């Protein structure tokens, strides 16, 4: 989206908001369907929307993406527990001034010590430990956190990293209280947010209630929120259509179900947007014959990305590289640029002919196909693309056999690199190059399942990370993304899109287009009935 367009949309948004501002009604309980049992209530220990959506409202961040902006942007970040912030001259220190008079749900005062505690824990520096720390890689650049009195806290970095603010604004970055143990945060979290945690009934429901002492006067509007776990999507939708729920779980509805909702409940509001997930291909480049770049290239040439999108989502899934494609994503390659990347050309038959030529050169052919196993998690979201992949690989004399792997051992197998070819669905928490590139593609990173390692490219990762100019940075990110795709580091096949629906009387839900994770504070939501 151009910045002028962005401005126009924002203005429209603001004027709508201003018109409605005096009309909010207090009260009522919002009923929401939930897709599965969240592993725990502790946001810092989990990396799933299943925990974020119900529990983000219990907390506050230092800063947050401006809810009035339709897109999460680095230059549209607003204060939350911090009232203001400043970068040092050298770009290596970020200092926050904190809000006064904020109280935790148990009545204890909030201070800079809590911020230090939280990030010391995340960077692994403190005694108090999280049981799991999935976002440790986000903070590899953070050297130290210092406090100056109760109201000031500073992040000291090894290298300048403007994206740090993006990470701190994400739903994944709440401030935790120093005085509550990590174990309690999993079962009964304490925050400063607009709602207080009430209960988490395993496989049944979750409940939060209004925090009457919230530091934003007059908010929240709702008395509480109830999430009911209904794992079967069609059942959840039928219950929503029958009026038993006000809001569906976010990013869960494929186009058919959105259409179904709209035909049965035409007044319902549905938004389809990226789910921050991408389907990608894992090729174990240590295992012969996949150590040969030519075979990897032939595989990439066999893939018809459009067919994947058409089958999985009736064509609404977007095609792109490692970064979320525009216009929703800020960093993805433009459609024109994408055409220059090998394997993304529109003429699939030509690609496949090239692929077959490569395979024939290597001694394979229709009578002598290469037999491989395609490993994937034994759940439909993974298996469906794997089935399509096997179908496509036939075009270049590769005979794939599906190996479904139980969810419980999938990541253990990936970490051991105990696979040859895998179909993977990957979640990307924040639309930001630092978050995506370092975790997935840097040498030795734990989430780098393919063991891809390219020192020259990694220098570029660091270079873009320090840049402040958006346009220049984006150009480098495109170059990196192109190199990653052509090198077959982890060929990206599609970027998922799905829908969220709510009843017309639910007001104040504002979804940013490039995330499902960052807009569930629920403090502006109210019921008009």
């Amino acid at each position, binding site marked *: 989206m151009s910045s002028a367009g962005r401005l126009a949309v924002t203005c429209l948004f603001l004027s709508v908001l201003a018109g409605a501002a005096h009309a909010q009604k207090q009260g009522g309980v919002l009923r929401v369907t939930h897709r599965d049992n969240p592993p725990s209530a502790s946001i810092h220990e989990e990396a799933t929307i299943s925990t974020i959506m119900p529990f983000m409202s219990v907390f506050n961040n230092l800063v947050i993406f401006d809810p009035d902006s339709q897109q999460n942007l680095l230059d549209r970040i607003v204060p939350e527990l911090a009232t203001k912030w400043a970068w040092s001259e050298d770009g290596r220190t970020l200092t926050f001034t904190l809000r006064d008079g904020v109280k935790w749900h148990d009545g204890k005062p909030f201070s800079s010590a809590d911020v230090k505690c939280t990030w010391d824990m995340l960077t692994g520096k403190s005694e108090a430990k999280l049981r799991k720390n999935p976002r440790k890689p986000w903070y590899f650049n953070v050297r130290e956190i210092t406090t100056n009195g109760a109201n000031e806290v500073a992040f000291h970095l090894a290298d300048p990293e403007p994206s740090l603010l993006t990470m701190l604004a994400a739903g994944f970055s709440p401030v935790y209280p120093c005085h509550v143990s990590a174990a309690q945060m999993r079962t009964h979290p304490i925050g400063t947010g607009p709602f207080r945690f009430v209960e988490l009934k395993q496989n049944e429901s979750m409940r939060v209630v209004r925090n009457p002492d919230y530091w934003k006067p007059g908010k929240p509007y709702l008395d509480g929120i109830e999430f009911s776990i209904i794992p079967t999507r*069609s059942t959840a939708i039928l219950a929503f259509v029958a009026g038993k729920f006000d809001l569906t779980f976010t990013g869960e509805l494929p186009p*058919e179900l959105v259409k179904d909702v709209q035909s049965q409940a035409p007044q319902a509001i549905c938004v389809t947007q990226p789910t921050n997930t991408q389907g990608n291909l894992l090729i174990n480049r240590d295992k012969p014959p996949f150590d040969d770049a030519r075979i990897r290239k032939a595989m990439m040439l066999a893939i018809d990305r459009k067919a994947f999108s058409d*089958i999985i989502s009736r064509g609404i899934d977007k095609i792109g590289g490692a970064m979320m494609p525009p216009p929703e994503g800020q960093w993805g390659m433009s459609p024109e640029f994408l055409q220059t990347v090998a394997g993304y050309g529109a003429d699939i038959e030509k690609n496949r002919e090239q692929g077959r030529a490569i395979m024939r050169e290597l001694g394979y052919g229709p009578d002598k196909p290469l037999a491989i196993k395609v490993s994937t998690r034994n759940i439909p979201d993974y298996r469906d693309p*794997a*089935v*399509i992949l096997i179908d496509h690989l036939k075009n270049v004399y590769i005979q794939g056999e*599906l190996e479904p792997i139980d969810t419980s051992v999938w990541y253990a197998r990936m970490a051991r690199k105990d696979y040859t070819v895998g179909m993977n669905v990957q979640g990307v928490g924040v639309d930001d190059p630092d978050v995506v590139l370092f975790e997935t593609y840097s040498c030795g990173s734990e989430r780098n399942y393919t063991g891809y390692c390219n020192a020259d490219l990694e220098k570029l990762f660091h270079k873009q990370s320090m840049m402040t100019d958006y346009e220049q940075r984006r150009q480098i990110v495109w170059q990196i993304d192109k190199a990653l795709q052509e090198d077959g580091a982890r060929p990206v096949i599609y970027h998922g899109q799905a829908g969220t629906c709510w009843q017309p009387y639910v007001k104040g839900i504002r979804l940013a287009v490039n995330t499902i994770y960052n807009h569930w504070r629920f403090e502006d939501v109210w019921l008009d009935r």
Partner: protein
Amino acid sequence: MSTALAKPPAAAPTWRSEIGYLAGRYPLGVAGAIILLVFVFAALFAGTIAPLDPFSTNPAARLAPPSDAHLFGADAMGRDLLSRMIHGARISLAVALGATILGSGFGTAVGLASGYVGGWFDLIVQRVTEIMQALPLLVMALVITVSLGPSLTNTIIAIAIPLIPSVARVIRSNVLSLRELPFVEAARAVGMGEFRIAVAHVLPNTLAPLIVLATAQLGSTILTEASLSFLGLGVPEPYPSWGRMLSESAAEYVHTAPWLVIFPGAAISLLVFGTNLLGDALRDMLDPRQRD
């Protein structure tokens, strides 16, 4: 092994009248046998009968409703449902026959041994069967499937194991009464070994109840596989299992594409219904004590 049941046809022309007699005497049983034969036929010749490749995806046919091109419609990946169901008959029958044969085989061996040998061996077997019967069949199959991991063979094993105790019990009680009969004494008197007596004389006489039981189990194994698949733990992709086809479609499309739920479910029900009809008739024929 002696054929204790099948009367050899006396002359060639009489087999027609034999069937005619059976059809008149056990019409429901014959209907069941026909249903079963149709499914067996579909399974055996799946490759030739199925109109399309059951694995080939097609974006254009995604969730196509039943039509001339796709008689039963197409699934979410545009694969022809009828073709998948025809191939699915193989899976259902493989699981049903595999698990029943495995379970009945082991059950018979265990029951025969424990009934014939008696003593401490019998005591241990009895206790073990009691332990196995203290858990619902599906619960046991569930735990075993998870322990073994997802695969066709493992599913068969997981379903077969819980069948063993009931077979063992029936065979054992039969053997206990057979053991005391004069013909066993007679065999012993002519110096026949115990093992041979057990296998050559006692075993054939337990065949009638075994066949009745096995037929009844055939249906229940199909239902167990369907339930396991419904819970996401049955026969995995790429095998087209009816239970999984139906449960995964139901999760998404029970309202938008009901044919994906109706047809596989109907196939499961019809096949089980057929085996049950046949099982009833066999019971009436072979087990006079239970005859109505």
